[in-house]
């Protein structure tokens, strides 16, 4: 589903963000990417949605080499990838319903599809009773649920999560992880960058550890720290 083949990413010819990274993630896997700030986790996600291009090496997403994808096809790549962030990236002047509907609207889904899918997905993430609330009326955990609903409403093959629990307290984080786990069980590949060691240790999923842009560990059913 995702494959990186000897990927290097160098910013401005001097800063090496990723150094010879080769990873393969199969369909339906749940993968944590861990490592300290600046280890290259976010760069990895930027490369997967082709916000950035690798300096060298090949990246395959859903069987396609996205390095030679023409620019106009990039939006269609992104329709297969849901993305969630630490800061939620919700639109403050739109309601919960409209925030999620917006994602379908701008990729041209017909209205009857939007009207059917949006309440359904919001029910799934546990916000069925907050459709007409605005983001500032919600807790952090609820806001992240909205952003997950938005990322997942178009049923992408892959869900990328960049520090999704970074702004949340531990018990809310656990709820978010349960939600991501449920999404993973529908067959969606989930790749989550985090440095939340409690979550990684509790989930016991595959862990890829980055350090200064290099893969220093790739372990099935791993924990956050060294060893195991």
């Amino acid at each position, binding site marked *: 589903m995702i494959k990186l083949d000897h990927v290097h990413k160098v910013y401005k010819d001097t800063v090496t963000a990723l150094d010879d990274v080769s990873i393969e993630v199969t369909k339906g896997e749940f993968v944590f990417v861990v490592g300290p700030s600046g280890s290259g986790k976010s760069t990895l996600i930027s490369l997967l*949605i*082709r916000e950035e291009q690798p300096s060298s090496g090949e990246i395959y997403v859903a069987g396609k080499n996205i390095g030679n994808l023409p*620019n*106009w096809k*990039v*939006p*269609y*790549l*992104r*329709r*297969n990838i849901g*993305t969630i962030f630490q800061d939620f*990236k919700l*639109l*403050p002047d739109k309601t919960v319903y409209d925030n999620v509907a*917006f*994602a379908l*609207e*701008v*990729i*041209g889904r017909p*209205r009857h599809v939007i009207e059917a899918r949006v309440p359904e997905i919001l029910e799934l993430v546990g916000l069925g009773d907050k459709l007409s609330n605005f983001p500032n009326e919600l807790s952090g955990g609820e806001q992240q649920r909205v952003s997950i609903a*938005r*990322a997942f409403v*178009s049923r992408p093959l892959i869900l990328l999560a960049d520090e999704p629990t970074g702004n949340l307290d531990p018990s809310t984080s656990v709820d978010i992880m349960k939600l991501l786990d449920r999404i993973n069980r529908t067959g969606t590949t989930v790749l989550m960058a985090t440095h939340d060691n409690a979550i990684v240790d509790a989930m016991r999923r595959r862990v890829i550890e980055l350090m200064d842009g290099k893969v220093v560990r790739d372990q099935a059913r791993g924990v956050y720290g060294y060893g195991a």
Partner: protein
Amino acid sequence: MARSPRYFLRETFQALRRNGLVLFAAVSTAFVALFLLGGFLLVRQEVNLVVASTEANVEVSIYLQDTISPAQQQNLQQMIQRMPQVATVGYESKAEAYARFKEIFANQPALVENVSPDALPASFRVKLKDPQQFAVVSQQLVGQPGIDKIVDNQQLYNRLFAVTRIFRVGMLAVAVIMLISAAALIGNTVRMAVFARRREIGVMRLVGATNWTIRVPFLLEGIIEGMLGAAAAIAALFIMKAWFIDPLHNNVGFLPLISTRDILYTVPFLLVASVLVSVAASLLATRKFLEV
């Protein structure tokens, strides 16, 4: 690929509402630019009309002395007719000249009253095959008995055209400069709208909206601004005609004047110019923000 038109309209009008003053600046500049462009087209049309009417009219007037004898007059007419450069010759008697004079100055009765029917000279009105041949014709006629004065109307019109040419070129130059500033201002409002919506644009790119989906509301915004300017310019041209051109019909009845049809003829030019300018401005303004 069909996006709902409701989405585009909503986004466009939200953007238009957001920056009223900047919008006003952009629309009014577009208005001035397109008004001048329309003015240029109309002046050009007016010159064309005058050219057409003079070509249909007399090019050379040969005024006769009152003392001319019928034999001299006949002699003279035959002589002019025989000239190879001459296309047609017509005779206008003193009475006909007075009738025409009354007609031209029908709105100035005081002037008409002060001129006796006797005061205007009879003339031969000559149309040349080639207006440039005036000197040749004139040379042959000078000194012939009974001729008072030979007037080359073409020269008069040439001078008029020289003046209007400067006017036209100046108007076109100012119109072009104004169109460029209109484009800059429209581009600026679009850029502000893009900036105001940068979060939305970020989300749209994230969820895989195509660049055209993102761009269309901004393009529509620019086009609407340009079209508002064009509509105002067209209205202003009509008002100009009603207030300043139409009264001239009474004062300078001998000149053909532009009509409503001529203004309608400029409408497609102004609309096309406004759309081209605003599309170019909006595309430039959105290009930078939409790099993948």
